[in-house]
């Protein structure tokens, strides 16, 4: 299958006063699985619909390969889109749904039959070919619309939260399936989701969006381990933020920060904030190690323990009204300090991140 790279250059979209997409620059490589991740209303759908050609952008341009496609109407863009609510054609059978795009392209009946047949087999839908959509489960409908989008051999596959209407089990199953399928046919894919687990697990690269802007682009590991903005750090994973004061230089080219509860945390100088300006340190709940309290070390009081099964979360008060959470698993989760007890804290090897303090 052939597909193309996609470039989004300084694209903005304004609806009256609202700027839904704000100067977004992205570049998706040929065959890449690229995800737009962000909470509801951050402009993911709008951007995807602009790529599909359903609405014109206010500024910027879109290129498929080297060709600018801004003037190409939606039905000529050769993108395959999968919609959040399926958008299956309810009056057509499964086969007719899948054949729809091929018929619109005026292919010969023989070729249509052959390609639809191959698609049915690939999606394991053979036995459902002549059913109507209302006789299918949600997962089956989603496979039909996926088949419908892929069978036309689009330049780009566009998916807008395709799994959000499914129950958890089906969602987990299908995301693996979609990922495998995408690898198998090597189709350039622009995928939209608000589910960070889905984004990290499926994607080659992820763009985290907020308020119409791209906060960070990177591989799932980069996004998870090296968030570049406070927003990304807060949005991905479970993160603690503590007000911090820069004390001065530590050893090994680091800067030292003082955090509530008497802690001293070292951060590589390159990442440190400007001396004197208020800052926040951030670290994941599961990077916090809880041990016995020591005289001079970093301490906190346990105010609550929350049992989630494999993980247990401790709510810790570091200073009056300054709280943090620790997520404990494995052996650490077996023996828990009772609420009210004082504990000692330290961090796993991963160093904390520093962000300028949020303006009040």
């Amino acid at each position, binding site marked *: 299958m052939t597909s193309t790279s996609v470039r989004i250059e300084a694209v903005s979209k304004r609806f009256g006063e609202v700027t839904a997409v704000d100067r977004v620059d992205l570049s998706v490589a040929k065959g890449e699985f690229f995800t737009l991740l962000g909470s509801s209303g951050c402009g993911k759908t709008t951007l995807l619909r602009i790529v599909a050609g*359903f609405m014109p952008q206010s500024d910027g341009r879109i290129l*498929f390969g*080297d060709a600018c*496609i801004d003037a190409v*109407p939606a039905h000529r863009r050769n993108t395959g889109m999968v*919609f959040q609510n399926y958008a299956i*054609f309810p009056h057509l059978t499964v086969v007719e749904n899948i054949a729809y795009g091929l018929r*619109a392209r005026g292919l010969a009946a023989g070729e249509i039959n052959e390609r639809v047949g191959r698609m049915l087999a690939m999606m394991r839908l053979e036995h459902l070919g002549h059913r109507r959509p209302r006789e299918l489960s949600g997962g089956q409908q989603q496979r039909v619309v996926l088949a419908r989008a892929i069978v036309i051999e689009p330049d780009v596959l566009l998916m807008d939260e395709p799994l959000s209407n499914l129950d958890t089990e089906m969602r987990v199953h299908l995301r693996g399936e979609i990922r495998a399928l995408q690898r198998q046919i090597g189709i350039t894919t622009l995928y939209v989701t608000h589910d960070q687990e889905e984004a990290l697990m499926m994607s080659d690269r992820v763009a985290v969006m907020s308020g119409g802007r791209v906060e960070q682009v990177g591989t799932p590991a980069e996004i998870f381990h090296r968030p570049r903005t406070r927003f990304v750090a807060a949005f991905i994973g479970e993160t603690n933020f503590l007000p911090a004061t820069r004390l001065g230089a530590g050893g090994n080219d680091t800067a030292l920060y003082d955090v509530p509860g008497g802690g001293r945390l070292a951060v590589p100088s390159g990442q440190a904030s400007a001396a004197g300006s208020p800052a926040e340190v951030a670290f994941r709940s599961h990077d916090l190690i809880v041990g016995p309290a020591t005289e001079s070390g970093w301490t906190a009081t346990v105010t609550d323990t929350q049992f989630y099964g494999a993980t247990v979360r401790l709510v810790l008060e570091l200073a009056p009204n300054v709280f943090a959470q620790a997520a404990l698993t494995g052996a650490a989760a077996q023996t828990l300090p009772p609420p009210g007890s004082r504990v000692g804290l330290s961090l796993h090897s991963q160093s904390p991140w520093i962000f300028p303090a949020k303006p009040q």
Partner: protein
Amino acid sequence: MTGLAYTVTPNWLSRHLGFWPVVTALAFVALVALLVLPVINIVGLSLSGKDDQPGVLANYITFFAERFYYQTLINSLIVSSAATILAVLLGVPAAYFATIYNIWGRGFVRAAVVLTFVSPPFIGSYSWVILFGRSGLVTATLAEIGIPLPSIYGAPGIVLVFTLQFFPFVFLMVSSGLKSIDQSIEDAARNLGSSELSVFFTVLLPLLVPSISAGALLVFVAAFTDIGTPIIIGERFRVLPVLIYGEFVNEFGGRPVLASTLAVLLLAVTTGALLVQRWYAGRHAHGTAAIRPLMQREQPPLKRLLASAYVLLLVGMALLPIINIVISSFLKANGPLLLFEPTLDNYIRLLRTVAVPLTNTLLYTTAATVLCAVVGTAVGYIIVRRPGRLGGLLDGVVMFSYAVPGIVLGVGLIVTYNEPPLILTGTAAILILAFFIRRLPFSVRSAVSMLQQLSRDTEDASINLGAGPGRTFLRITVPLLAMAILSGVLLTWSNTIRELSATLVLQSGSTITLSVEIFTEVVNANFGTASALGTILILLTFLPLVVLFRFLGKQEDALV
């Protein structure tokens, strides 16, 4: 890059010659030709001054200076307002009882309301004449035993007929309004200690203001613009639309200026009423939507009996003229006198004459209905799916045609198309186009509401798969809306087939329709023939509705 068959350069042509831009342009042309231009022309004519008295307002000055003219406006306002008030006073309680109480004969009540609603108004009035007129059945019978009845002619008769004919507007609007109130709202009021009566006045009535005012507006406009009833039953009591009609048939081709002036006044009142209602209902709109609509409740026997008696009496009265027509169509007639002698004479006599009006009626109605379905769906699509300045303008123009009464449209079309370059007066086309434009706003509104319920993604999916806008509309939108379009077709048919006002001024001898034929027979006092024709017309009106309610599962409030 592969797959992209060709690149398109962005130029003016490709942006403006797509499927929808062309459809939008065609819709504008049709609306301008059939609605905007005629209205502009009558306004222009009315401002063209008089031979002996130049000045743009000369015609209006004449109107308001001469009692012969301005009295008709006052008369119209009096009877329409009276009928509106009575229809609200009678219709609101009836709708409340029929919705909330377990009254007897609910099925009958629903059918009777629909039947009353769709039967042509002038049939109601001449039926009342048959019963209560000077030599009417009831009048004569009661006179024999010495009980004199008040006269049915003049203003009281008009108000009686209008009230009974048009209260279904209020009934249907309020019924559907009640259905949009959630049971929990009433429960909460009761729970807080209100009696039924005080719940009705403090909670339900305020929430029903938009529905009641919409119903009242429909009654007012229908009454204010009706020609048939005042002609048949009004006698010396002259109203504005009848004056227009009179001016027009008398002075045809000679002096349409006065008719235009009168039509503009009529249009001003209906437009004003529409705007006032929109404004008033808008201020009182609460945007309620019921998750669990008001439930029907068991009532103690006496209450149930009284409520049932009230509702049944009201719809019975309204239905009486129709029953009377059907029965008298099978009775021997001697001019306006009906004899109690069963016969098929009336129908047999019809066989010779009915072919032309019947064929015309079916042909024009069908043609207008098809036009309405096609154009209405397309325009609704533009308004919902392609909003923008043009879509908004289209919406505005279509909704304006709500306010244009049949007689005004008739006058406008005649003054516009009775001279070159395009002469349409006297043709079938002008009738079909008039019917079409009269019902278009209803078709558009129903298309708009069904499209709003259809997720846009389904159509976008089709576009995305490579089907162009035209193909998408035909392959996806239309099939998905098929049932809704069919309902719209049945409603348009039922409402078009009984049109009288516009038809009266637009028809010529060869394009006569059933409703005009009935009207003529009534005016000539051939009640037997009129009844037989009336029965046929009622049947043709009612049958599509039976299909609509029985097989398409629609509710009565689809009518308004």
